């Protein structure tokens, strides 16, 4: 246990003694019942543990899920439990979910630039593509494939963009690092 543990008010003291396995079970229940991505800090708070204590707990959970139909996704400071891509046929058969319409070639291009250059400004994207990207970027934002990631410390403080968890889910990969060959 960390020496300078900062247990938030309301967190029960006996959580200090909880094992990785026990905390992993609780984390699993939390991620399951939430259903969406959650900030690591909020997750740690809900577990009544220090943020630094979360990493081994999530590692434990990832191992626990190794031969399961679910997996853990970690991206930036976000954590989420999702179904494994191998089950997607069955999931689709059950839910018949709305398939997001095909992305236009322009959207693909923009997405690729954001994916491999993030965080990136609209101006930088337009510089590479040579055309106005306002609308196509709006589309990607609306589809939840791209999101704002703060602002660049430069004149006009332009918005910075990056890819989302949903983008990873569409590719069926767990982390950005799992993308095919990331150029530096």
């Amino acid at each position, binding site marked *: 246990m960390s020496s300078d543990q900062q247990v938030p008010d309301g967190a029960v003291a006996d959580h200090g003694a909880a094992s990785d396995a026990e905390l992993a079970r609780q984390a699993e229940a939390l991620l399951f019942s939430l259903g969406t991505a959650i900030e690591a800090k909020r997750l740690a708070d809900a577990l009544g543990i220090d943020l630094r204590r979360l990493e081994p707990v999530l590692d434990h959970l990832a191992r626990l899920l190794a031969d399961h139909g679910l997996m853990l996704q970690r991206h930036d400071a976000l954590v989420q439990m999702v179904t494994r891509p191998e089950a997607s046929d069955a999931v689709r058969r059950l839910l018949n979910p709305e398939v997001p319409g095909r992305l236009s070639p322009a959207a693909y291009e923009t997405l690729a630039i954001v994916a491999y250059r993030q965080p990136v400004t609209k101006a930088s994207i337009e510089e590479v593509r040579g055309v106005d990207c306002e609308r196509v970027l709006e589309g990607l934002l609306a589809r939840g494939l791209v999101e704002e990631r703060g602002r660049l410390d430069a004149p006009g403080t332009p918005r910075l963009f990056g890819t989302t968890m949903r983008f990873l889910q569409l590719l069926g990969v767990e982390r950005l690092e799992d993308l095919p*060959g990331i150029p*530096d």
Partner: protein
Amino acid sequence: MSLDLRVQTPAFEGPIDLLLTLAQRQQLDLNEVRLADLAWDYLAGIKRDAAEGRSRSPDEVAAFLVVASRLLALKAAALLPSATPEDEEEDLESWEEQVRQRMVEYARFKEAAMELMKRHQEGGISFPSAIEAEIIPMEQLSIDPGGLATAFQAVLDRLPAPEEVQFELSSYSLTDEMDGIRARLRMGESTSFGAIFEAAQSRLHAVVIFLALLELIRVGEASFRQKSVFADIEVSLGKAPAVVSARDLANGDE
């Protein structure tokens, strides 16, 4: 409907429902309660209401009669055995037995109810997921990233470092690259994965070529084949399935 009627007797004070419950559980001796008084009190209440222009609903009166008759039956069962005419004795015995069995049955459910209450209040609760169905990974992009990444990385490694081309970037069009790959595929039977990237002028260009290739595979215009593990991946014009799975890449069967 349940009855909201309080009774006041020397032995018991409270809702009449509770009186019945206690009597059924034999936690209260009905001999101590004058049932006639209960009936008179209730009638007096009805008269009082009537004098004030209010009337009680038939449902409520019926509910009172049900409870009162049950109390009466319980009391009778307690008083009965000794003084009964002979020809009715058998009926009364079986009736008494029924009442007794019902009380035993009730006691068991009462116990089960206590157990449920304990579990609910002391044990934890299970929660379902608040999930929304739309976060499901989509099939059309479930191309095995591992197998392709290896091949893609090999292409990238041959390209100049990004700093050197940083300011030479021009715009690349996915459509153009798709046309380029189509043209190349139509020329020969198949081409190697690596060869497709030979035209790449920069890492970004390679990315666009790569995405163009993915798109062609997705729509079924191109397909992959790998003859053995680590062998170069062959790309050909294809009516092949839109999705290339890891198994397809690994097997490489003709």
